[in-house]
């Protein structure tokens, strides 16, 4: 069941939520692997500690943007693994499209600024 409405999917994501969805786009991961991937994706500019990570994961689980999945057979049983849902993918795509549009606009603006 996907409880995310179109308005929610279209609304801007918080940086932590965006990075978690982005990290999960490459495949299922456990919490700490998400944290490491998020650091890598942000070139270590976004400091995400365990509390930020898991409160955001909790929010994403509640809004059905990610879901818990069984881990690998020989994995650490203490860890939970997470997967992007259809709603999560839509939210990530919407955010990336919004960012792309902003970059295009800023480039056009710079061009206009250069001309004036």
């Amino acid at each position, binding site marked *: 069941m996907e409880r995310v409405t179109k308005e929610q999917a279209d609304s801007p994501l918080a940086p932590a939520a965006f990075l978690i969805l982005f990290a999960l786009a490459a495949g299922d991961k456990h*919490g*700490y692997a998400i944290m490491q991937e998020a650091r890598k994706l942000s070139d270590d500019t976004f*400091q995400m*500690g*365990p*509390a930020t*990570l898991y409160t955001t994961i*909790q929010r994403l689980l509640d809004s059905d943007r990610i879901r818990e999945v069984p881990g690998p057979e020989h994995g650490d049983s203490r*860890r939970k693994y997470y997967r992007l849902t259809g709603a999560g993918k839509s939210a990530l795509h919407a955010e990336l499209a919004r960012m792309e549009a902003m970059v295009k606009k800023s480039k056009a603006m710079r061009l206009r600024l250069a001309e004036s």
Partner: protein
Amino acid sequence: MNAWLYQKLLLLYPLDLRRDFGGEMTLAFAEDIKNIGSLRVWWCALREVLTVALPGQRSNPSVLVPALSFALCAFTQSVELWIGSHQAGRVGYPPLIDSVVLVVLPSLLNAFVALVVTRFYARCSFITLRLLN
């Protein structure tokens, strides 16, 4: 030791977060210490107390009030210690023992008193404190 301390720090977080993710949070914290060093990880963990734990406890005065009481007391005592040591002609940071005796202990005592008041006296009919709904 680091993981044990972090587990204690998790008491400041909302119960549902601790219940659902407490074990994983401690695990991630311990792994992060191993990979990037304790100073940076502890700094991040303490910052998260202010940015995640306390805002999450808005509806729980028995955590919020002692924590704020501790922070306020630590701040005022630190200022007093700093002024006192400068007036005494000392340069640099005050000695550790002074900081513990004049800042940490009174702040802990203050937090404890605030905890007792919010936990027990909030239910008394003559001192309502308006902490309970």
